[in-house]
């Protein structure tokens, strides 16, 4: 209650200054102001009472863990979502944004990690495709000249007549930026633009960003790489759990402050797992590499152990899992199973070796949504449920499903219900049942608790603990740092496809792991 009062007061003060600035017209006026924005999805609060301002000629960095509410804020700024309460103030005028076209008309544009270009059109066309009022005919000569001008403003050399197909990601991003500034952008939102760029390309991008800043564009820069944030930003705002934690000029913030603000979550909420007895090595990986995704990955996985994989989204953890499961086999390196070298080329082979993989995207890769719970659970080993004629024995299948429904307490009126109708947590339990039913020796869990409610989350945690006790070797990939810390015996930290070290749970803490994942602290490699 008190904090809300405080907030109200703060906002009032904020308002006051805002009015003052307007009247006096001497302070720089913010081009975009988010005022007390709140947004929830059902019971989950994505943003609560967030206020921030973007000034022209400023690079404003937005930092936070995954799920801190950054994406929601961006989507509100670009008109994709509407806030539940609060105002969007553009150039001092409260405005409602109902579509991204409207946001564009107000000079707000966004660039995403995956650029959305038209592969068959050339660069000049891609830049001008959304322009209205270009008349009926295309004046190619003028378009090429204008495109060249725009690219020149960005100080990049790209052939404006080249097709966008086949351009490297960095160039596609440049095209998106050019598209934005050709539309007279005043607020440019960049959502993790550097996530898939090389160091050289990042330098190029920063050059462009600085040019834009010099031209008076307000840039909202979102990145998981702290060193970049400190390099480019004038102001750093940190989000955690849908709230604005701090917003300070860059020179007033240290890296340690930033990391603490990002992870400062009470640890007590998470189920604490007791370290388990380590048995023999089941799976070991040596120097595994996949061009462009990861390289030099080596670890041992023991029976009864939970090996956590920490890192940022897109750091290559899922790719390592996909390589181990045979969906995208690695190019280089060796996997040993029971100390014998194996070559896993397909999921089928992996399943035969009793490796199971719970995928990150359960709706796309884990489930067949319109089919029943029972059918989903028996899918990978369907042949065991068919008799000599290939006829499926429904009784046996239903029995299995019934067993798992009780064992994992899947809450459903019937096991014949299509999984589409279950809640996220129960869907995840169905996927888990499906893989447990193959009696795995190695279980790879990729973000097992993403998007499921707190109760179900704890059940999944207890289940992981039980499974480890039964002697299953578990790889746990999670972007939820407290979860990884609480559940794992050891933690592999991956950053940009490289292994930053293996940490023992006894010695690791959140700041250390986060630092390694963001490339802040160079830790000694601790090969267990």
């Amino acid at each position, binding site marked *: 209650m008190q904090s809300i009062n405080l907030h109200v007061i703060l906002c009032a003060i904020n308002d006051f200054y805002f009015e003052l600035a307007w009247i006096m017209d001497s302070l720089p006026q913010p081009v975009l102001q988010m005022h007390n924005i709140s947004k929830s*999805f*059902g019971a*989950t609060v*994505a943003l609560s009472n967030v206020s921030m301002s973007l000034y022209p000629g400023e690079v404003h960095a937005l930092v936070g863990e995954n*799920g801190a509410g950054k*994406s929601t804020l961006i989507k509100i700024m670009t008109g994709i979502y509407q806030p539940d309460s609060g105002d969007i103030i553009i150039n001092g005028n409260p405005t409602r944004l109902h579509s991204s076209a409207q946001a564009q008309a107000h000079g707000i544009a966004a660039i995403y990690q995956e650029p959305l270009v038209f592969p068959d059109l050339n660069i000049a066309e891609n830049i001008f495709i959304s322009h209205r009022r270009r008349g009926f005919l295309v004046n190619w000569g003028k378009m090429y000249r204008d495109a060249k001008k725009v690219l020149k403003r960005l100080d990049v050399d790209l052939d404006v007549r080249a097709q966008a197909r086949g351009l490297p990601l960095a160039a596609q991003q440049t095209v998106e930026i050019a598209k934005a500034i050709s539309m007279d952008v005043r607020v440019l939102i960049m959502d993790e633009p550097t996530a898939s760029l090389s160091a050289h390309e990042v330098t190029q991008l920063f050059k462009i960003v600085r040019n834009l800043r010099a031209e008076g564009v307000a840039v909202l820069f979102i990145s998981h790489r702290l060193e970049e944030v400190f390099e480019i930003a004038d102001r750093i705002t940190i989000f955690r759990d849908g709230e604005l934690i701090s917003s300070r000029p860059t020179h007033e913030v240290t890296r340690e402050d930033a990391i603490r603000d990002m992870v400062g979550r009470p640890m007590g909420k998470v189920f604490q797992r007791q370290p388990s007895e380590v048995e023999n090595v089941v799976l070991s990986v040596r120097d595994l590499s996949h061009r462009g995704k990861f390289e030099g990955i080596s670890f041992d996985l023991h029976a009864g152990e939970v090996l956590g994989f920490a890192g940022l989204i897109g750091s290559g953890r899922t790719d390592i899992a996909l390589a181990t499961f045979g*969906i995208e086999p690695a190019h280089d390196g060796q996997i040993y199973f029971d100390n014998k070298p194996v070559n896993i080329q*397909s*999921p*089928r082979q*992996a*399943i035969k070796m009793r490796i199971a*993989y719970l*995928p990150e995207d359960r*709706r*796309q*890769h*884990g*489930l*067949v*949504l*319109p*089919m029943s719970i029972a*059918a989903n659970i028996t*899918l*990978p080993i*369907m*042949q065991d*449920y*068919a*008799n*000599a*004629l*290939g*006829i*499926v*024995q*429904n*009784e046996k299948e239903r029995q299995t499903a019934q067993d798992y429904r009780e064992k994992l307490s899947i809450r459903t009126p019937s096991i014949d219900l299509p999984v*589409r*109708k*279950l*809640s*996220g947590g129960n869907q995840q339990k169905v996927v888990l049942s*499906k893989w447990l039913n193959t009696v795995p020796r190695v279980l790879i869990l990729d973000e097992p608790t*993403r*998007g*499921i409610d707190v109760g179900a989350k704890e059940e999944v945690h207890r289940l992981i603990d039980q499974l480890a006790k039964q002697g299953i070797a578990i790889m746990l990939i999670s972007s939820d740092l407290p979860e990884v810390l609480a559940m794992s015996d050891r933690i592999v930290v991956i950053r940009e496809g490289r292994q930053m070290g293996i940490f023992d749970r006894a010695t690791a803490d959140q700041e250390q792991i986060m630092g390694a994942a963001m490339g802040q602290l160079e830790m000694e490699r601790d090969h267990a």
Partner: protein
Amino acid sequence: MKLLERYPWLRRWETLLFVILCAAVFINISLSEHYFNIDNLANIFHLSIEKAFVVLVMALVIINGEIDLSVASVMGLSASVLAYEFEKGASLESAISYAMLAGLACGLANGFFVAYLNIPSLVVTLAGLIAYRGAARILLEDRSVGNFPEWFTSFALDDVYVSIPTLLFVLVGLILIGTLVYQFTNLRQAVEEGAAFRFRKPGPVGLVLITVLAAVLVYMLALSSGAFEATTYVFAVLYLISLGILQFTNFGRYIYVIGNNRAGAEYAGLRVKQVKMTIFVMSALMAAFAGLMYAARVGNIRANAAEGFELDIITIVLLGGVSIFGGTGTMVGVGLSLLVVLNLRNGMSLRNINDNTRASVIGALLILSVLIPNWAQTIQRFLPRTLSGDNLTLDLENKEARESTETA
């Protein structure tokens, strides 16, 4: 609305089809006194039996998320190969095997391009539609070949009179044998796994299936006193087999799973490519067989044999409740829609309606069978919740949508 809630099967597409079928039969009866004639009822099947054969596999193809536009051309090709070989003086037996080999080759080609080179089946089979027909033209040019031996044509033309008691006897026998085999294989597995064996009762779905099948059979038998061509009996057996494969075997399950979510199937370790290949080969083989049946029925073959049959075949499958996007639909629906289409065609021909006009009615049916479910979806979205009678689903789906946005 209450009624719909209490009996969910009332909302099924199959129920609607059954009503349409009854309406079609009723209209046919009231419009033409010839409809009830024995010969006419046999004709309903007789004149389209080849299409009916291909429909059975086309349903599998579309449920699997693909399409095969080349079936009519494969039918034409196999008939032409048969005619060409026969014309050259080969024995009919070897001509038949060459025709089937031609079908196999077409199926392997389609399957290879679709499953292993990942080219959309629409494109592959459109090219096949032109190319296989072209191959038939190369063989027969503009000749017409006929005079097949009598045993061959009689297979398609002569009625096999089976008295109702005999037929019922055979039917009951088949069901008994089937049940015994099924129970025996279960028994063997039970013994292997050391589990207790017990007799399995058919579930509610099974009961509905048996009732519908029995109803259809009685309808046909009662009206025709058992006078069908041999091909019709072959069809009945193949229908039951394909129904069994799709609805009760693990292969059928794979077809649905891949049609619903190909990536998910791959992540679960299913052999997606092999399944797709198998289905395209099955489709072409069935089309080749149907081409032979066509040759036997018509008696002389030109290169344009069976041209345009894909329209009827695809219409029947889509009208049967199979989604063009794959993943849904049942053999019961396909069987019912087959009867609907055949009855419509029969009724129209009794009224001396031109063949092209009949085709255009089928074309309209094709479009409507996709358009109406689309509309129904749109309307349901805008209806107030209390009216839609599906509160639970809607609620959970909204929640799901929220969750997916959270994670995004």
